[in-house]
């Protein structure tokens, strides 16, 4: 239960806004930290905290790309293949990532460890190819540094 496991965090989030509804996005972040994705249960809990209908929370989850509606791997690797990154080799790079992981972008490795996404510009176009690994930036990636990182994660 979010309410029991993250009570202090929930209070902090609610205190940031004059309405409970405004807390829905940060609460979804907490829920996602807790459950790994925005499960139906997570959505119901967040809805209850914000005094909202679960369908309203579900529409928020559906709208924003960073909320996962389905289970993802322990590590989510978001590789940018938007125009500026693509000018610096991002398409070839992400093709390499797919080969290395043995999955297509959008999929999760069979052991449930790594999910690969292709994402739109993450505002680090000057350091392409670039990825966010569970939200943390990894700049100036090469097939070699990517393989190293993946080997580490797969251990």
């Amino acid at each position, binding site marked *: 239960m979010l309410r029991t496991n993250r009570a202090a965090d929930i209070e902090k989030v609610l205190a940031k806004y004059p309405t409970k509804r405004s807390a829905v996005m940060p609460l979804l972040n907490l829920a996602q930290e807790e459950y790994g994705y925005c499960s139906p249960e997570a959505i119901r809990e967040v809805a209850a905290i914000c005094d909202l209908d679960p369908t309203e929370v579900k529409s928020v989850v559906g709208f924003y790309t960073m909320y996962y509606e389905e289970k993802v791997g322990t590590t989510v690797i978001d590789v940018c293949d938007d125009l500026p990154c693509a000018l610096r080799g991002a*398409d070839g790079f992400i093709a390499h990532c797919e080969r290395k992981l043995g999955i297509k972008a959008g999929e999760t490795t069979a052991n449930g460890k790594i999910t690969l996404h292709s994402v739109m510009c993450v505002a680090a176009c000057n350091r392409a190819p670039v990825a966010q690994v569970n939200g943390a930036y990894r700049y100036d990636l090469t097939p070699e540094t990517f393989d190293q990182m993946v080997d580490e994660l797969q251990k």
Partner: protein
Amino acid sequence: MCAYAIGSNLAYIYLRGEFSEPGKELEKALADAYANGLLGTNLMGTGYSLDIRVHYGAGAYICGEESALLESLEGRIGQPRLKPPFPATNGLYNKPTVINNVETLANVPWIVLNGAAWYRQFGTEKSSGVKLFSVSGHVKNPGNYELPLGKYSIQDLLDMAGGSSTGRPIRAVLPAGSSSPIIPAVNFGAKLDYESMAGIGSVLGSCSFIFMDDSVDMVWAARKMIRFFKHESCGKCTPCREGTYWALKLYNKLLSGEGTLADIDMIGEVNKQIIGKCFCPLGEFATSSMTFTLKHFKQDYIDFIEKKKGGTPEYKAELARDTHGHHAQAAH
């Protein structure tokens, strides 16, 4: 200072959700400001109080549009509001609200300290001050450059960024990212100010300059941009939602090698169905990539078909990735 000027005691910084890492630095800076009496209650004995709180988005470009941002901050999906009423009268929680970019606000202390005349010595009559230029693409030293407006040309900016990184000549630049009219290299003499950019049929906008060398096929580049806007369309209005969908379909057809010359006209037609019909500027932004690559680089489109450039393994892989690769925003 902005909050003080309008008598507000509460400010939010809306940070895109992808910035959780830099966000930690920001939150630390805010905590320092609280600790040093620069934020909180009764600031420096004035009786004035101010709270600044950080709100994170969760991956939606449209939430940069001010009214969509307010919706998002109120816990809703980020779809723009009908204006009027404008945020200045009916903004966050229906209260008067001022929304500014952080770069705008960053100018304020210097203007207050040194005066407007001092600030105006930078820039031109119509484009006063300095601006951050964010340079990416085929340049040796991509990154941010702060320059006075009106002093340097596009070519100067390119030179400052070290020139072409590929050894090939630069062919064109997008001066304000994917939403701006592309500028062919013949116009690189234009000065970096609002009036000069308008003079060459483009804009200064966000000043995110994406330089492209002569290896770049404009059909491919336009498709990347349309893909972005299709992905980021909030779905509220039909011309943008459906228009970007159909436009992407046409570009995908070209890239897959199945395009015909008629598809080029069709792209122009779809484009016309979007222009001037959208609820917010995003739909309009989406048309730029089509309008201006067609205007300046139509031969790329014709060559693409006639010389059968589509259907390469690379393009096919790119298209395959797109159909299921990213975590798409649900259509509403």
